[in-house]
């Protein structure tokens, strides 16, 4: 057990370790997990479709009451929403297979284009938030586990619960109030100053990830500007996740500290520091990998709220805009697409977890 837990992640499926299931266990695990994505995505997409379409067509939802009945019927007919639901559903599935998530009603843009334009911004925000979460959550979790039931542990646990209890948008508002309004040291909202944003849009092959684009311009003022805008949103979203990491690391380190191989190491005279760092801490990190996968869903929910709070023009911000405009085709498209992203991320995370920890490959 002990040796397999501490196997470095770089070595996938080493031959000498014979599982009960025989050779190729990892390959089969990956295959099974990959096949499981299909029903998951199918169920999610179907759920969204049925919920949104079975209860009414998007045109009535957007325009109902504003257009005369005959014009409304005409537009519904033109868009094909008066056909049987099953026909619409099959057509929708067919479109999805071609990567077509629909076209928005309010501004006529393909949903995939929205993903490409704004996805980078959300990715950037999620990345910053994860950095904050790791940098804050993991060390603090170790401290809490190490000083278990002492004052630091008590304080940290209450802080972790507080991080969970604070809605990410309220944390955002408070940060804005303190750092942007009262202290006036950080920008209130947006991803960069208008001047910088324009400049970033003009460079060759913009990635949409402002930090990379700003570095490409070679102007350090741009980089600083972009980073300044990122601090508050990253903190708001990151601290929420940091609380989850803290609790997780604490629980896992405590449980590995109580396990047999730690006792064995202690009886061999391994120092307490090394015990904590090597024997208890590293195996405790494995569940973190799995949890990051689950955090993607939480991060996406959080990103919608954080982006709205800070007018960070990413997918979540757009989603909120389309919600306000009652453009439910766009909402359906974005939500379905996010569901696919979550399913794919979970798959990747499961594979990574299997590479790190052979026990996962059942």
């Amino acid at each position, binding site marked *: 057990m002990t040796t397999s837990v501490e196997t470095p992640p770089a070595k996938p499926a080493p031959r000498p370790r014979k599982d009960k299931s025989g050779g190729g266990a990892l390959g089969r695990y990956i295959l099974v997990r990959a096949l499981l994505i299909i*029903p*998951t995505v199918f*169920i*999610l997409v179907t*759920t969204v479709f049925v*919920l*949104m379409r079975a209860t009414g067509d998007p045109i009535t*939802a957007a325009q109902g009451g504003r257009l005369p009945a005959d014009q409304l019927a005409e537009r519904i007919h033109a868009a094909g929403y008066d056909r049987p639901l099953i026909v619409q559903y099959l057509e929708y599935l067919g479109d999805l297979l071609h990567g077509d998530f629909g076209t928005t009603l309010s501004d006529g843009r393909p949903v995939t284009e929205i993903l490409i334009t704004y996805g980078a911004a959300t990715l950037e925000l999620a990345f910053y938030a994860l950095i904050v979460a790791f940098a804050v959550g993991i060390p603090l979790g170790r401290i809490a586990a190490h000083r*278990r039931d002492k004052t630091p542990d*008590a304080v940290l*646990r*209450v802080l972790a*619960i*507080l991080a*969970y*209890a*604070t*809605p990410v*948008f*309220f944390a955002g*508002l*408070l940060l*804005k*109030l303190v750092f*942007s*309004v*009262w202290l006036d040291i950080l920008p209130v*909202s947006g991803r960069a100053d208008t001047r910088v944003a324009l400049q970033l849009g003009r460079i060759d092959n913009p990635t949409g990830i402002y930090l990379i684009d700003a570095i490409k311009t070679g102007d350090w003022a741009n980089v600083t500007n972009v980073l300044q805008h990122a601090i508050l949103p990253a903190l708001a979203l990151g601290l929420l996740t940091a609380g*989850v990491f803290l*609790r*997780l690391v604490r629980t*896992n380190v*405590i*449980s*590995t*500290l*109580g*396990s*047999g*191989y730690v006792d064995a190491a202690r009886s061999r005279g391994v120092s307490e520091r090394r015990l904590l760092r090597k024997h208890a801490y590293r*195996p405790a990190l*494995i*569940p973190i990998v799995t*949890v990051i996968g689950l955090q993607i*869903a*939480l991060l*996406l*929910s959080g990103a*919608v*709220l954080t982006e*709205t709070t800070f007018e960070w023009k990413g997918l979540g911000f757009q*989603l909120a805009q389309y*919600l306000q405009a009652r453009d*439910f085709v766009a909402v359906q498209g974005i*939500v379905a697409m*996010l*569901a696919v992203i*979550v*399913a794919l991320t979970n798959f990747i995370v499961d594979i990574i977890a299997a590479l790190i920890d052979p*026990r996962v490959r059942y």
Partner: protein
Amino acid sequence: MTTAPATAPRRSLWARLPIVSQLRSSVGLQRGMLIAGLVLAAIFLLTALFAPVLAPYGFAQLREGDELFGATQPPSAEHLFGTTVGGYDVLSRLIWGARTAFFVIVIAVTASLVVGVLLGLVSGYFGGWLDRVLVVVADALYSFPSLLLAIVLAIVISGGQSGMWSGIFSAALSITVIFVPQYFRVIRAEVVRIKAEAFVESARVIGSSHWRIMVRHVLRNSTRTLPLILTLNASEAILTLAGLGFLGFGIDPTAAAEWGYDLNRAVADVASGIWWTAVFPGAAIVLVVLGLTLVGESLNDLADPRLRKRAAGAEPVEDLGVELPADAPAGDDEAAAASSTTASSGPDDGPDAGPTTKEGAL
């Protein structure tokens, strides 16, 4: 009914009530957290209950006599927490908001409890293709970003805008769909385990009906983790409601007060330094969620011997707490399993073990 009198030396009903028994078995920091949580939760309940008495004004009241309150008035003697941009009294909306949150929690948790437990029971007990389908669907829904799912459902149920009761119901039912998979998973896992126990087999041998076995023998033994999930879900329900409100899917301000919606209105205020419209409703959310989470966390820790005492058993527990916070009790299942399986009428054996083990560790 025959089992209860059979085990004669039972403690009084009061001592066996979920929270009371845990309160008795708690010590030190854990007791402090539990009590703090209970106090906060009690304040919330009382505020919700006595909102009409406590609130100085109505939630949609704009004037006293002939005089308008005025917009964005700073806190004063007439308006302790100031007034909003719309000219509402912040304190009054805060107090009435407790009532809205309370209704949403009660409806959401009750509905998801009934549906989730029923599905989990049937699915786990009978197994077969229905079980497999339900598990895949529950897993798919569980991996979905919960806020996005709630948004889709809020659109479907209410079309996005609504009065007091329709708004409360649409928010509550949206949250229900998020919670059902959680109850389903927990109950199903318990049922699958208990189904294999000797006492279930005995019941089947003497010819009990499936229904009777399910309700009398299986369900009664699989509900021990529910109080924990209930409290954690109640806090999650508030956060989801606030998130929906913040994105503009709340309840119309003239129909009822809702904290998330008030925070949505406060985003613009914060940029101009008006802090009271954001800080007070936000603090209300944080305190209520904090209270409920503290209760849930403490119950969880008290029910889990590995968290309750130092150096618990030698088993390496790699998946403990992986799905915090909602699924935190998952680890509890296995630990509790050992003590519960010995007697069919012992759903509170586990917590009883609390004081002895804890004090033994100290």
